[in-house]
């Protein structure tokens, strides 16, 4: 697979603008084989501290498990705005994410980030795209991530269903979080993900949403933080984004166990049957 090394992290704003302008007319069944790589990515401690504070982590040297995803977001976006990329980025929905951290990551370590797109698969609401991200310190693979996105479109009713998330425990919540209307704007500031569906009711409505919604990667990071230090060392987490969290709203955190690890979920305060996120975490001490 050809690997292209970029000169540095591209700016996300212009990439997202280009993604919007080139959304129409993208088609095809094949994802081009291509890996984009950026070397010597330095973590800005001010941005990291803001991220840690917003996602409920301590301000520390240890990089939260979802943070390399945030760092790699412009690389992934650059991959998807290439002219030969078959799917339109705007409106794409994050369905699932699996991350493995091989060892604690220190904010002082420069990272090499790689992004490549995997297969397109039929889904009952369109097609899904797999994206693989990797982070290395020197040659050492310290972090890997597989994301699944849904490009909404003509569905395939008989498409094979993915692995369904484990059921969340019922009963009283372990926490109640009141998510303010400005959460998406705040997270956009620290993450650089300025996708309009997260910013304001009007910008979200333009893209077919009832209101603006919380970033899935925020709900994921915040839920991981609620599980303590288990995701800071060698560990794997898997998350299913089952329904968007409209802003503002109040969600409940529920906790349980899953196989040898932890299980966590977010559900709607006023409608506990509505699950927003299911997460499993396995820590290898």
């Amino acid at each position, binding site marked *: 697979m050809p690997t292209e090394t970029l000169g540095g992290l591209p700016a996300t704003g212009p990439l997202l603008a280009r993604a919007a302008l080139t959304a129409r007319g993208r088609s095809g069944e094949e994802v081009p084989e291509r890996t984009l790589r950026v070397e010597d990515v330095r973590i800005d*401690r*001010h941005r990291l*501290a*803001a991220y840690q*504070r917003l996602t409920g982590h*301590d*301000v*520390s*040297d240890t990089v939260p498990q979802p943070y390399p995803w945030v760092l790699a977001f412009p690389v992934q976006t650059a991959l998807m705005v290439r002219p030969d990329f078959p799917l339109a980025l705007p409106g794409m929905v994050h369905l699932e994410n699996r991350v493995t951290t091989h060892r604690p990551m220190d*904010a*002082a370590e420069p990272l090499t980030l790689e992004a490549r797109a995997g297969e397109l698969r039929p889904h009952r609401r369109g097609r899904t795209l797999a994206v693989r991200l990797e982070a290395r310190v020197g040659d050492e693979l310290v972090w890997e991530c597989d994301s699944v996105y849904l490009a909404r479109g003509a569905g395939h009713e008989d498409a094979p269903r993915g692995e369904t998330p484990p059921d969340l425990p019922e009963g009283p919540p372990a926490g109640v979080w009141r998510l303010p209307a400005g959460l998406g704007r705040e997270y956009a500031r620290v993450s650089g993900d300025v996708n309009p569906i997260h910013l304001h009711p009007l910008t979200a409505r333009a893209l077919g949403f009832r209101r603006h919604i919380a970033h899935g990667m925020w709900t994921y990071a915040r839920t991981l933080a609620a599980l*303590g*230090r288990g995701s800071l060392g060698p560990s794997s987490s898997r998350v299913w984004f089952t329904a968007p969290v409209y802003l503002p709203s109040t969600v409940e955190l529920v906790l349980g166990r899953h196989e040898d690890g932890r299980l966590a979920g977010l559900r709607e305060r006023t409608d506990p049957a509505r699950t927003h996120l299911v997460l499993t975490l396995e820590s290898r*001490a």
Partner: protein
Amino acid sequence: MTTTRRAAVLGGNRIPFARQFGPYAEASNQDMLTAALEGLVARHGLAGERLGEVAAGAVIKHSRDFNLTREAVLGSSLSPQTPAYDVQQACGTGLEAAVLVANKIALGQVDSGIAGGVDSASDAPVVVPERLRRKLLRLSRARTAGQRARAAAALRPTDLGVQVPAATEPRTGMSMGEHMALTAARWGIERQAQDELALASHHNLAAAYERGFFDDLVTPYLGLTRDQNLRPDTTLEKLASLRTAFGTGPEATLTAGNSTPLSDGASTVLLGTPEWAQAHGLTPLAWFVDAETAAVDYVGGEEGLLLAPAYAVPRLLARQGLTLADFDLYEIHEAFASTVLTTLAAWEDEEFCHERLGLDAPLGAIDRDRLNVTGSSLAAGHPFAATGGRIVATLAKLLHEKGSGARGLVSICAAGGQGVVAILEAA
């Protein structure tokens, strides 16, 4: 009567101290205390362990941090079943926390515990002016539309403003530096002697880092691996060139070089019984022998604000049947170089010892080669509540290096005219 047990200092951990608005500018007290605690837990293999208690505190504290220490415990790898409480006794906080934990161990109430402290001069709580605060409270009490309108109408643009807490004594309106400048002038403490003490602090701290002394006492944090304030290359000439910061006229001697800077940082100390230590594969470094707290009447100008340790030490010595010369090491917190020098001068002064301390003879002089041998607050910085833990862990390790029976004295002055002192003995 309950038989008391011996409490041992088993280790310590702190994060390097940073200057105000330095690399820790965005870290909260909770972040820093958690980092120091987690480093201690990692170094001593305490993950998942339920300890007897964790006692720590901060001098400058947000009201939202009502359970600061408990929150730090919950953010650490300690068992969430470890209880915790906050302590606050100005700059005596860290040492007082160690006294509390050691006393519970001695009384058999707990077998292990952690004492600590943290302060941020950067992430300080911002307070609105008192007049605005009262108006806002009145507004939130208002029930009817009329009351609300009246309360809101009372707000004036001129009420707006923010206040950042300062190291000012509420009863005198003077800063700690101004108080110290008065005391130093009264005792005739020379500028050069202060600068020499500051120089020794920097050189001793630098040498201790060079020989790896802090390798098992400090965990890097936010990119800092050594205390940011440390100036290994400073000279007497450089210190002498600084303008005076406190005091007025030709008598002014306090500079930014011989006063501690505002700092951010956190420290922790692990204490336990020898049996608990053995069961956890840990070695007692020093026994926490005894402690004394004193306070002086500084409000009427009777005594210097920071001279309470001068009173606490002789009481502690009398109780232990010791003299001031009976120590291998002295750790006297360098709030200002002049604080240390005034305290030493007071103990050598016949009139002070006779009239103020009620002693027949002066307490005497100490061997200056035994004082703050790995530097102190002038070089390391002084995040108020974190200083006690820094000193206790440092002294315990120094005494352990010297060998069984070596004795050390800790002396820390605090705002409000208070002082906490303690004796440690090598285990």
